């Protein structure tokens, strides 16, 4: 219902535009017009295929499990040749990492793009961040569990020692640091340098809590996040009193 309405809306102004275009306007020559458009088109197709692969992979990770899923099966599910998969991703770990990058980006955007959160207290911003992440992950819960275990293998690109995973974590924690600084200026926060690292451990704990939470609608996770973040933020705010 909603999509219909929006498509009609977007269609209408386009029509009006073509009608209003005066004939005199000199159109760009074929060559100049097609070149950037073709590149754009190509990029769009590429992105579409990439998304197709990720979608197919996630659905297989979720139903068959991460370990049991092969790139061959992913290609078949996506309706492309196996070789094409490798044009986009080095391995299935690579696909998983891409998914986690998207997850982190969307959660950070959810906090930044929400005008209501601008003046919110620290604990609320952090709550919104973690909650957005968990909402993103929710449809793939089974896969998240196996990915966590998989990530512990030393050679795994998902593991904490792979370059790309480290980069992602760094970006995420830099963002957390920003959020903390917005509420507590650096000078007043002697534990500030430690806070993002502690938050990372906390986040991992919260993720595990969420995975093990069997309450209806993951109600316990909501309560856990709320109570622990409130406590954490309060401790951070008072840290100046105890640390010199």
């Amino acid at each position, binding site marked *: 219902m909603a999509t219909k309405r929006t498509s009609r809306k977007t269609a209408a102004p386009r029509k009006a535009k073509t009608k209003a275009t005066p004939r005199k306007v000199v159109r760009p020559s074929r060559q100049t017009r097609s070149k950037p458009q073709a590149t754009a088109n190509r990029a769009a197709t590429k992105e579409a295929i990439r998304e197709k692969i990720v979608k197919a992979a996630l659905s297989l990770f979720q139903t068959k499990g991460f370990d049991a899923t092969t790139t061959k099966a992913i290609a078949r599910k996506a309706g492309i040749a196996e070789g094409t998969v490798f044009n986009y991703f080095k391995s299935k770990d690579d696909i998983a990492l891409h998914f986690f990058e998207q997850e982190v980006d969307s959660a950070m955007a959810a906090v930044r793009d929400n005008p*209501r*959160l601008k003046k*919110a*207290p620290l*604990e*609320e911003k952090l*709550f*919104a961040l973690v*909650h957005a992440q968990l909402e993103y992950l929710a449809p793939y819960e089974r896969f998240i569990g196996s990915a966590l275990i998989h990530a512990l293998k030393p050679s795994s690109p998902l593991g904490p020692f792979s370059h790309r995973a480290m980069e992602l974590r760094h970006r995420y924690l830099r963002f957390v640091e920003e959020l903390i600084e917005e509420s507590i200026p650096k000078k007043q926060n002697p534990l500030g340098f430690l806070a993002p690292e502690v938050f990372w451990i906390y986040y991992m704990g919260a993720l595990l809590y969420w995975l093990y939470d069997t*309450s209806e*609608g993951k*109600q*316990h996770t*909501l*309560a*856990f996040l*709320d*109570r622990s973040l*409130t*406590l954490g933020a*309060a401790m951070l705010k008072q840290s100046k009193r105890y640390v010199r």
Partner: protein
Amino acid sequence: MSDEHSTSMRRALSLANIGVGVAGSYLGYALQHAFLGEGERGAKLKATHTRAARRMADEMKSLRGAAMKLGQTLSLQTGTLPDEMLAELATLQMSAPPMHPSLVRAQFKQSLGAEPESIFKEFDPEPFAAASLGQVHHAITNKGERVAVKIQYPGIRQSLANDFKMFRALSKPAQASGHIPKGAIDEVEQQIVAETDYRKEADNAEFFRKRLAPLTFVEVPRILREYSSDKVLTMSLMKGQHIDDFLARRPSQKLRNQLGDHLFELFYFQVLELQALHADPHWGNYLFTNDAGISLVDFGCAKYMSKSTVGYLRAGFLYPGSTSSPEFRHLLEKYYEDEGRQLAPATRRALVGFAENFYRKVYPPDLEHAEPFDFGDPQFLNDFLAASKDLFRARGVLSELIFMVRAEMGMYQTLHRLKAKVHTSAIVRKYL
């Protein structure tokens, strides 16, 4: 005895550990409160009833939820707490920690499938009152109706269940000695767990809205089922003021008397006519208007009474004869028997004492010459508490009556604050 005590202690501790591991305890919220300090705590909820709670000593504040209600029934009788504090306790509410707007949205969305802003035309992210187990927000529906939206704090049901596990174990000695009747904890737990399901509350509100219609001075909110679930309850906004604000405007003695009569009639109409009772006497649940009207809110705790109980009360209220007569004794014995208990001589003496030292004073039997009873004098509250203590010591507490007595005590407390003069016996007589 000490052995038994330590075993149950250990069991309680281990159970508590399990509980805390899974979902924490309701008491945990209180600890969180203590940690945050006064400033942050008070910042979000400026609701009037917190003023009532604030009057209490800090240790009492940590007695919340299951602990609070059980503590009430226990400490009420053992005389471990000052009387005024007990009186305050009867009207304290189970309050969960306040929720920030993001948590409110998450909780609302999980329950009703969309964020409040997309369901309502307007939604105020700041709560205007604390409610049992959650908080209340103003909103306007798409049809333009002003409503109150009550939203429950997540995971509360499990927290309460954990507390009850602990209390069952902790209170084993008192159960064994007969001071707490076997069914008492079940009764309290059942009532409190029922409060966590807002759909039950919606049912209660609809029941009382229909059945209280004959009392024209009482208003009950209309439930908007389409915006309600087990954790969200949307109802029409009620008019009136909480008792603090009402009293701040210095209402006349006449108005206070009228309101006192109305409160009194509301109580006895419910007990004797409806055989059901709005059983949460917390001050936040009553709104008063300038024409002595009463708006009732929050129907989470409703007690539906048995026929035999109401029959017994009917026969016992304003008992015309002597309380030491064999007939009165027979009446008491029969009721205790119906409730599966034997009436011990000590219990009977305590009940007779209650009737003589409290009820005969507050409810004078001679209707012709009776002046309205003045609730402004605090002596009657002390009499009530002293009589309840005796009854507890004599092991005379009946599970069936716990919530009625709590509501009754809450009513007396409100009447005392109003300093109302009430036609007690005449009103009860109307419904006998």
